[in-house]
């Protein structure tokens, strides 16, 4: 019983072994995408400071919802109501903060509570009835969107409620979602000529990029949190287990229902972060916000190597998936591709990414 080697296992080179990880597909994709755009759209402004900020923000948005969707998907469920939740959360803030004129921080906190509770409700129905989350969250997709249109229509006779920026003026919590950090550094960089300054208009002399929006900070924070939670904690092991085989996990003492409900809540939390950042930036909440975002989140996660059926994936991968998604979307504009073809590209990239990921996963898990 002492032989620790097995002659039936062919050699795998250490390099190959180090490379073969769930994120690999996302890494390859990222490199490919950047190479491509560096070749075809380099002088379009895509890689100057403003251009970089441009696709970074779009990617950060995708990342925020992708982190939630990723953990949930690894836990074996998914949430089609993310998009509607974004619209709903924004509207709640507008209703509380503008219509009812409560202090903005209360409006934000209450919105977080309501949305996480809705996420929990989603999860509770899924675990209690054993229904597929596709159906349950599809129902919530419709229900939440319906209320998002109905509520402002009833209370304000509008479907866009503006004035949120004014209402948030001087609030302590709002800048955590809508502010920017690092302005002095950017001003200095602008003065040094590292990044361009505006040449005309009202802001002439200011640097074209004047700070890092909190949106990006949130994205990075959520990615780090999600990654550590998943790979380095006991709870992370439970997430994998719940998604890999709920029955087996339950038999082994993993509180599967709790894990799933918490992940639904976390997804709702991420959607709310997205919504709050958005309403703080644009100052208005509309009934049409977040349309189709649920698909975009799922696509980013899947491009990042997670398995739609659960139990396998990585937050870093999902973040790379979101980056690819964001860069491709904006890059096509920089490259001047006819914009209606964007969907075609998106579909094709999605297909290629998942095929690559499947190949990688087969190698990892042994060709089953």
């Amino acid at each position, binding site marked *: 019983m002492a032989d620790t080697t097995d002659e039936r296992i062919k050699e795998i080179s250490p390099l190959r072994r180090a490379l073969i990880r769930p994120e690999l597909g996302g890494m390859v994709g990222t490199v490919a995408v950047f190479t491509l755009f560096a070749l075809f759209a380099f002088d379009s402004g895509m890689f100057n400071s403003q251009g970089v900020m441009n696709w970074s923000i779009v990617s950060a948005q995708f990342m925020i919802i992708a982190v939630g969707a990723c953990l949930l998907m690894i836990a074996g469920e998914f949430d089609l109501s993310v998009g509607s939740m974004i619209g709903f959360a924004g509207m709640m803030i507008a209703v509380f903060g503008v219509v009812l004129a409560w202090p903005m921080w209360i409006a934000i906190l209450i919105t977080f509570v309501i949305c996480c509770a809705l996420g929990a409700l989603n999860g509770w129905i899924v675990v209690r009835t054993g229904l597929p989350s596709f159906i349950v969250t599809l129902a919530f997709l419709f229900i939440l969107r319906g209320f998002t249109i109905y509520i402002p*229509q009833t209370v304000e*006779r509008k479907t*866009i409620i503006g004035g949120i920026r004014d209402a948030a003026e001087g609030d302590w919590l709002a800048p955590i979602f809508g502010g920017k950090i690092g302005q002095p550094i950017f001003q200095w960089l602008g003065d040094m000529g590292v990044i361009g300054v505006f040449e005309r*208009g009202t802001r*002439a002399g200011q640097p074209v990029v004047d700070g890092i929006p909190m949106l990006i900070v949130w994205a990075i924070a959520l990615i780090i949190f999600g990654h550590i939670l998943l790979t380095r904690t006991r709870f992370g092991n439970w997430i994998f287990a719940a998604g890999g085989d709920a029955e087996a996990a339950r038999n082994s003492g993993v509180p599967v229902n709790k894990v799933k409900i918490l992940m639904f809540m976390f997804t709702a939390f991420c959607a709310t972060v997205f919504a709050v950042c958005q309403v703080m930036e644009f100052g208005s909440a*509309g009934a049409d916000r977040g349309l189709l975002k649920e698909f975009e989140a799922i696509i980013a996660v899947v491009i990042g190597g997670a398995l739609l059926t659960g139990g396998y994936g990585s937050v870093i991968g999902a973040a790379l998936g979101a980056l690819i998604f964001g860069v491709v979307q904006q890059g096509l504009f920089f490259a001047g591709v*006819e914009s209606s073809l964007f969907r075609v590209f998106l579909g094709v990239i999605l297909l290629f990414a998942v095929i690559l990921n499947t190949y990688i996963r087969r190698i990892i898990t042994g060709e089953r």
Partner: protein
Amino acid sequence: EGEKYILVSHAPDSDTWWNTIKNGIALAGEQVGAEVEYRNPPTGDIADMARIIEQATASGPDGIITTLADFDVLKGPISAAVDQGIDVIIMNTGTPEQAREIGALMYVGQPEYDAGFAAGQRAKDEGVTNFLCVNHAIQQPTVGERCRGYADGLGIDLGDSMMDSGTDPSEIKNKVLAYLSANPDVDGILTLGPVSADPTIAALQENGMAGAIHFGTFDLGEEIVKGIKDGTINWGIDQQPFLQAYMPVVILANWDRFGVLPGNNINSGPGFVTKDALTKVEEFAGEYR
């Protein structure tokens, strides 16, 4: 008293502009004492809209107010309603000729192509030579007509100047930013409604081109009004949706009660809203304007 009028639009649930229409019919219904209902296909599928008109016909209202988003599709259902003795008024999209052809009482609105054409001519006079048209509803055939008209009015080929922007404000903003930095020779922007205008304003403020680039938009909203006021937007084309909704209800009620009818179609737009006359607009933007 107590007549029932149904307004059917082609707009998806998510299109926020139609809110003014809802408010318009509600107010008119209240004032003339008629029952009014608003209906729309949830996804904006015009074929579904045809079914809704058929449904409205079956429920036997006194009048139907509807848009004519696609003449081919809606011709059948609308003329069937007319032939059953239901009075129909066409609003918003379509043309007076088409309205006459299917037997509608009249037309209240702003033919999309013509409005776009007028906007294009005005922009041309104001020196636009190269433009971007931000279309947040590419799947809807009607609003795209505005871009087509605008391009023809300018006398430029539409080419790929029409952007499929989607409806997410951050995406619209960043797509506009990307497009403008990739195409520095663009000196005119047309947005097709508040959904695309609001983020475009934010984009121009961010890249410092606010006021430096010619910016026209369709329809009004809070942010648009602010934009007009601070000079970011040169003009907004107001098709006065409130009138499009309010007038037909009032006209139908008077037609039903007293048999009186205006002798002409009502062109509710295009009216160019500029900095000069803004107070009323400001107060009611998004609600009645």
